[in-house]
């Protein structure tokens, strides 16, 4: 009951956020050089074509009316037509989005599986040499631009020791992504590196904070061992704040997919977007921005749901 209410409220918030996103994208559409008509018809369109298009699409009407028309198109799943692919933007995105999701989810899983134990281990060994070493490595991983890190990985693992291929497999289907799993290694590592850094730091400080809590003293007073306290109590309490952080990190992951996909020629949303930017394919650009933002909102929402599962206080409105 309380859980349902909480999730309904979060869902409503998400809908509001998506609404604001559509307004932002609509504004971007109207700030294109030559207005939306030029953006949709392309650079080669003649003034006559533009005027006719404006009339047909109601682009001579007030902005609010235009926005309503735009919203109506979105709700019907009409994101326009790409003028480089000559294909509906919605279709293009339906092909590409799953691949991006696969890549980002793989990155997130790999990153968390490494970062969470690493952070706890660092907390248990705080201020010893190994803690400083890992902290320094984390800082470097966080501070390296993904394209630079990816490049170094390609030069080392693909060119020099030829362990992993430097380009992801092409093809339209999702299955083709997994046809050559070793080709996923470098893109996943490149995308996960910064996330490992962020989350291991976060887990470390969260664990340290929890180790200072009263309940740890209570557990010690009951005769629990250091490892037992870490595993049975501190781990779960630290995890709640890490999961809360996960929601914030979803947009960063999607943003990173842009660079990673371009660098490794991985055929997802990011690469689609990159190519569209090179050819000024505005319908694709704006469609991608919209969908990636919706995906971000949904991802954040999922992180919140995950948190209600881990922390019973959230749904009771106490945390």
């Amino acid at each position, binding site marked *: 009951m309380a859980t349902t209410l909480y999730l309904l409220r979060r869902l409503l918030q998400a809908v509001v956020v998506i609404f604001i996103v559509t307004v932002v994208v609509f504004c971007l559409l109207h700030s294109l050089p030559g207005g939306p008509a030029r953006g949709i018809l392309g650079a080669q369109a003649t003034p006559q074509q533009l005027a006719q298009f404006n009339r047909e699409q109601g682009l001579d009407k007030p902005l609010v009316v235009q926005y309503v028309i735009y919203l109506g198109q979105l709700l019907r799943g009409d994101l326009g037509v790409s003028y480089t692919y000559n294909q509906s933007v919605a279709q293009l995105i339906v092909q590409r989005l799953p691949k991006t999701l696969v890549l980002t989810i793989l990155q997130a899983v790999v990153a968390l599986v490494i970062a969470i134990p690493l952070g706890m281990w660092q907390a248990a060994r705080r201020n010893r040499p190994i803690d400083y070493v890992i902290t320094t490595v984390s800082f470097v991983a966080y501070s390296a631009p993904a394209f630079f890190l990816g490049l170094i990985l390609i030069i080392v693992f693909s060119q020099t020791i030829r362990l992993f291929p430097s380009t992801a497999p092409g093809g339209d289907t999702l299955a083709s992504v997994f046809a050559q799993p070793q080709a996923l290694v470098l893109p996943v590592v490149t995308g996960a590196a910064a996330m490992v850094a962020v989350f291991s730091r976060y887990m470390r400080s969260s664990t340290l904070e929890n180790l200072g809590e009263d309940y740890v003293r209570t*557990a010690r007073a009951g005769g629990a061992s250091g490892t037992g306290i870490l595993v*049975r109590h501190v781990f779960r309490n630290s995890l709640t704040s890490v999961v809360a952080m996960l929601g914030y990190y979803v947009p960063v992951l999607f943003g990173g997919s842009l660079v990673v996909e371009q660098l490794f020629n991985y055929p997802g949303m990011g690469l689609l977007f990159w190519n569209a930017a090179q050819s000024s394919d505005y319908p694709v650009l704006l469609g991608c921005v919209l969908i990636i933002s919706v995906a971000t909102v949904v991802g954040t929402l999922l992180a919140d749901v995950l948190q209600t599962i881990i922390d019973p206080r959230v749904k009771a409105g106490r945390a």
Partner: protein
Amino acid sequence: MTTTDVSKPILEIQGLGIDFSTESGTVHAVRGVDLHVRPGETLALVGESGSGKSSVALAAMGLLSNNATASGSIVVGDLDIVSADEGALRGVRGSTVSMVFQEPATALDPLTRIGWQIAEVVRNHRPVSKADAFAEAVDLLRRVGIPDPDSRASAFPFQLSGGQRQRVVIAMAIANSPRLLIADEPTTALDVTVQAEILELLRKLAVDTGTGVLLVTHNMGVVADFADRVAVMLRGEIVETGSVEEVLLTPQHEYTQGLLAAVPRLSTEFDSDAGTAAETPAEPVISLTDVTVRFGRGAHTVHALDSVSFDVRAGETVGLVGESGSGKSTAARVALGLIKPTSGAVGLFGQDLRTLRGRARRTLQSGIGVVLQDPVASLDARMSVGEIIAEPLRVHRRGIGGAERARLVAEALEAVRLPASMAWRAPRELSGGQRQRVSLARALVLKPRLLVADEPTSALDVSVQKSVLEVIGELQSHLGFACLFVSHDLAVVQDFCSRVVVMRNGRIEEQGLTGHTLVDPTTDYTRRLLAAVPVPDPIVQRDRRQARLAALAAVTTTESLEQDHA
């Protein structure tokens, strides 16, 4: 247990010293402490904040923080805690010796069901299956008086009240029948009625099992209620030890004498003169009429206040008392205009606070002075004491120059018995009592007609409390302001206020002259509240305890009937 066992102390501390290395140097928190606890006896370790009493308790568990070093010896059973390694300490913690902490709100893991937290302590020391340990946990919850333990064992800590959480902590502590129980301010965070119940529970458990108890507390009433022997600590050293009667009734050391003199005592004598004071009708400076405050909407609505009406008249002091959640602080905040009532009227100096806006409202509010509970949070750490006190002047008397302002600040400091040179100091350099007096100086610098004080002394040691209350009383007779005094401490209110309003669950239970209402109340609730206050006299307290338990036994039957009807 043989007789030789009984005479041998379960806890023997000799020459204990504890040093803390802090950022600003080493602090010698405890020096040369000797004490012992025999099986079945309760030793109270009393002292004010910073006396080192809690450090002694933690040291006895081997739970001092990493920046602390202990010297001397602490023998529990046969083990010297000071020199023992972590493995040996783990063996005795929770089995031979266990501990109950001050803050039940944070003492339990928020994400683990309470049954499993207790079961964990069982399994730390005995090879029993998870299911058996959980069954034991349910039994323990029943022993500590948690209703419906079978289903409550699966509750999370946040679903329990403060008193119930403390019972869970106690259940964890007694899970392996320890021979020594260390209780560090076990009832300080609890309401007075809950305190009485928890103390009763601890006493029963200790008597039943012959457990020795080291009770750390600042509350002399708790000492009188519970302890057999008392050790008084001052600045890291024990200054006096003796039986509870000796120490509380005929204290030898000057410090103990001063401490006991400062403890507010609940008077039980009906004040027949009290009636005369209120005969003279003065106009109300503040009045709440049928004030209702609700927070939230729908199913989550909280009735913080429900048709609350009372007033404070010129020159008088009205005490607003009640337990946590009674709405007393909410009522004070409504009076201050910080919370808008959902319905009802608030009159300030004869005008309706609801209809006033902007300048007129602010001018009216300049007649109020405010002192809140937390000595740290009340003063902006980024300002000097002088700036803090001058703030009301800057708000309401913009015309005056710097020299005049400095003069008024100096005057205000002097009025609260602080040196004028303190204006240049930072709040962080001040003690708690000094901070509250700075708060008071700020409240009085505009010469207000009403002082609203929300628990102004509850964060302070008794001796400091006494001096702060003295200052308020003295200034009141001098300046003639009215005072709304919010407190949970009935003894303080009885001593300090002429009238009292007793609140419970957002409603007013009863109100009247302090000398009447807090001596011979008309409602059962107030009577129970009064009965639960422990007095710092072991002989008197013994009688009060018996009387309270007898009354409670009589009331419980009628109450359960009432609840059936509700």
